[in-house]
């Protein structure tokens, strides 16, 4: 360790590993439904895909959490994306490909993927 810059680079890398522990409310949360219905429909690979993509892109301030049954079991796997200061977006019938796209479009570029949301369901 020779310079302050070196230390700061190490800090940022270490900090990224610890986003999970940030409960300041300034963190984007992706909440995946992991009740029996969700798991049976394949929520686990979807959740792991979210985690993998976040790690791969080195995204800061994003955490992935689990929750129980969201209540629309026929549309599982379901995930909710909560960006601080924005309205909650609920995605349904997810797959690993969809999860990767949500990370890119919604989390990175800030544009929710309308076609995957619960609002896009045919009435």
């Amino acid at each position, binding site marked *: 360790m020779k310079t302050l810059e070196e230390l700061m680079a190490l800090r940022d890398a270490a900090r990224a590993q*610890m986003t*999970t522990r940030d409960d300041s409310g300034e963190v984007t949360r992706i909440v995946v439904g992991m009740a029996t219905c969700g798991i049976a429909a394949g929520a686990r690979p979807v959740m792991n895909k979210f985690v993998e993509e976040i790690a791969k892109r080195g995204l800061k301030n994003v955490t992935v*959490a689990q929750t129980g049954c969201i209540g629309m079991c026929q549309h599982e796997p379901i995930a909710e994306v909560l960006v601080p200061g924005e309205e909650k977006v609920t995605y349904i019938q997810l797959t690993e490909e969809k999860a990767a796209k949500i990370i890119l479009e919604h989390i990175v570029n800030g544009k929710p993927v309308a076609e995957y949301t619960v609002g896009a369901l045919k009435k």
Partner: protein
Amino acid sequence: MYRSHVLVCGGTGCTSSNSQKIIETMEAEIKAKGLENEVQVIRTGCFGLCALGPIMIVYPEGCFYSEVKVEDVPEIVEEHLLKGRMVKRLLYKETVTPQKIKGLNDTDFYKKQKRVALRNCGVINPEDINEYIAYDGYQALAKCLTEYTPEQVIQIVKDSGLRGRGGGGFPTGLKWSFTAANKADQKYVVCNADEGDPGAFMDRSVLEGDPHCIIEAMTICGYATGATEGYIYVRAEYPIAVARLQIAINQAKDLGLLGKNIFDSGFDFDLHVKLGAGAFVCGEETALMTSIEGNRGEPRPRPPYPAVKGLFGKPTTENNVETFANIPTIIREGAEYFASMGTEKSKGTKVFALGGKIKNTGLVEIPMGTTLREIIEEIGGGIPNGKKFKAAQTGGPSGGCIPAHLMDTPIDYDNLTAIGCMMGSGGLIVMDEDNCMVDIAKFFLDFTVDESCGKCTPCRIGTKRLREMLDKITDGKATLEDLDKLEELCNYIKENSLCGLGQTAPNPVLATLKFFRDEYIAHVVDKKCPAGVCKKLLSYTIAEDKCKGCTACARKCPVGAISGAIKQPHTIDTTKCIKCGVCVDTCKFDAVIKK
């Protein structure tokens, strides 16, 4: 990246209630469920709420489980970590509201606290230097070595108003400047981690929870004062703290944060851990240094002060653990930030170890100037079983007590000194109406009699005589003249002892005499112990009208002092009675009276 972090308290308190086994079981269960790449288990330092240990926090939800048992672990893994459902029955009661789960920092225990010295305790993994760095660790050191001159560092510490947290309250910046002013081929930095007060455990918790912050602070102190070597004197009975310090030192060396040419500044610093055998007197700075040198831990007269002639005869700066723990924050956030907390002459925060008759036993850090009432009633959750608060003992065997009518005194160095008490290292023992103040004084005297090193007569013999006088009082054999003699001897010991141990040893007696003289008089004149603690002054009798003659007490009495026929009132033979109190607990009709 792990999607979930499980933080389990690995402080001494929670470890003694089996948190190590909880961690092992947790890791095994996580593996069995195939979650080992998703969930990380981290052993942290003390969270502070020791009364509710073992404690566990699960992120990202931030949910706070208390009093977790090994048997609860499979349920937490299955329900919470696998299926995302919190185990409600284990959540800390106060965080559960009908609408939502409250954050930990909104609970009564944490709300009024301000964590500076404890900022990383219970937050990071103390055995991982990266986590310390993630929370801005070693930035203060980098700043000092690359931007400031040693004089500037000392000025910042002076401006912050930081005073020694070991009890004396000497301005830290001034202390550093004394050592810096002395020229020598070798100087030392010493960290006093010989925490000996009964009931105090904040230094241990800082070392266990955030060892790197002490290493960083000592290195900064070395740079500021011109020392290149440091010693941490820690008692061997703190094995967790010792192990983590050693790990931390090795990690810092590996990253070049200790050793030669730190941050390319040309400054070298090396650190050693020295184990103490647990003698109370070794908390006194000259005795501590004598002990590090390998000699018998005995104090020596000052001057010369350690800043002139300290460890191995060289200029030495000696600070307490908590004092050092404040340094990185002061450098990083600036002297103004630190000075913005606290009172006019006592800046910053103070850590207290809450113990005794209080609900939330544990570790709290509050801004100076907080009142005792706030600490006990709000943060501490009050006295259990609806009892009345009588006094709080601060400063351990060297300190005094704060009685109920002074509960609204803002706590800082000068206010406590003004009421004849002292800040001390931060042990805060709460006493209720069932505690006898003479007995408390006796307890602390017992301790100092045992711990007196024996070098000087006033302390060695004086404390022993003092102890005998207190015995006389609690035995009901003392007269009012004895009280005057007691006070006289106290003052004599105070004025004539060689070191802090003896000079402060009579404080518990003087403080209780000052505020609870009526209790002493009750012992001496009425031969009664108002709190019902001093056995020799108690007597047990049976109220004839209440006794049904059930014989339950007579059967339980270990010395056969109770006699009487069935269905006839019983009597106690006071010559046989050993005052154990079993009869009171046994009687279903409240017929046994303790006086």
